[in-house]
Structures are given as C-alpha cells and as structure tokens.
C-alpha cells in the first residue's frame, strides 16, 4: 500500500515496513522515527547504517548478531530503540522486518 510521509510517497506493507528500500532517504528515516517516538541521534544513525549495510549484503539480522556487530551492544540497542528494538530499527531503516526468533 502507499503512504505519504515527509512529503513523499512510499510503499509499505500492512505492518508499516517499507517494501522498496530505494524509496528510503534520511528525511523519511527521521519521519518514520518520529512516528515511533524516537528522535534520531548520531548513535541511532550509526546503527541504522549498519542494519542497512547488512541488508544490502543479504545477511539475516538477529539480536545475537547485533550484539556481536561491534557497532552496538544489546543493552544499548534496547536503549536506543526501546520496545521491540529490531522491529523498530529495521522499520526506520526502511528494510524488511527480520524473520528471526533470536
């Protein structure tokens, strides 16, 4: 389905995850973060950049991998994106929701 955000039209699924990463840009990221009640700090951007790189490299994401990434540890990840961090962070990053249980 289509959604208008930050003055642009993007495609999202029923859970609000973007379905075409090419449509994503920083202002959309900011707006998606605001929808999730998060204001993005430089630390947030570092984590989002890491998630997008992993997505582009087709690496499946999990909490365990993020803990071992060297970019952010699990505790900080939960502080940066409270409540469902992996879901929230991937949604803001414009990439699909990870299908991981761990």
């Amino acid at each position, binding site marked *: 389905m289509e959604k208008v955000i930050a003055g642009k039209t993007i495609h999202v699924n029923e859970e609000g995850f973007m379905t075409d990463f090419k449509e994503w840009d920083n202002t959309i990221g900011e707006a998606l973060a605001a929808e999730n009640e998060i204001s993005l700090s430089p630390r947030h951007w570092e984590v989002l950049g890491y998630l997008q790189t992993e997505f582009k490299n087709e690496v499946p994401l999990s909490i365990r991998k993020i803990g071992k990434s060297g970019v952010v540890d*699990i505790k900080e990840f939960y502080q940066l994106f409270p409540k469902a961090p992996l879901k929230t962070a991937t949604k803001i990053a414009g990439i699909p929701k990870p299908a991981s249980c761990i």
Partner: protein
Amino acid sequence: MSENKGEIKKMMIILSKATLENVYAAFVLANGARMEGIDSEIFFTFFGLEAVHKKKNANLHIATVGNPAMHIPTMVGGLPGMEALATTMMKKEMAKIDMPEVPEFLEILSDSGVRMWACKLAMDMFHYKKEDLFEGVEEVITVGDFYKKSEGEGVHMLFI
C-alpha cells in the same frame, strides 16, 4: 481476553527443568517477548536452577530417555554416552541456526532486560548459594513473591 483486546504485556515463565530442549524453549520465549516489546521474567525452580548455575549450565543435556520424539528406543537411550552423543549432535544443528550456547544466551537475555529470579525452596533443597548463580539472577524469592511480581493487566504465566 476482552481486557486490552487480549494484548500480552508481560510473560512470566517458570522453568522447572534443565534438559536442554526445555531450557532453550524458555529462553527463546523470554527473548522473543522482549524482541516484541513485551516484558518477560523467568523464575528458575527445581532442576531449572541448573540453567543458571555457573558451574553446570554449560553442560546441560537433552533427554534421550522418555522422549519418544527422539526416535531412539528407550533401552538404547539409556546406554552410557547416548545423552552426550545426542546433545553434541543437537548442538551442532543449533550452531547452524545461530542459536547461542546457554551461558551466552543468558547474557543476551540479561542485556535484553529479561528479569530473572531463583526459587528459595529449590535453592535450599539443592544447597545452592546466590553466588553460584549467573549474575543476571536478581534475587532469591518465594513463590508468594513471584505471584506478587505477576500482578497486573495482560500478564501471562507459562510453566516449562
């Protein structure tokens, strides 16, 4: 279920066994809750305490006897070394799907905000001390304390 449209706000998981498959079930459910933004807590009781016992939790086994889904005849399952063999095989499969070993999994749970409690009665029975346990276990508590912590809307309790 009409309350909050049945929304789950907190999972209270009671782990009473230390066979690997049960420990993993409890850990995956607790971690999965946190990943969805649901609070979760684990109460370790009876043999479940071994999962947080620092000297024991790296060497938990799966059960090869009394477990029909293993498809090993009970007599064979009881032979020396069978549990260790089956456990090694299962651990190999778990590594393939990026499943952490028990001590590392506990760290992940703790960092993810899963609160952990040890059962006083079982601690006394096994003569365990708080220092024997993983640091993420906050306190040794009674069943009554556990029920008190479980109060509130949208709290679900699960016995493993």
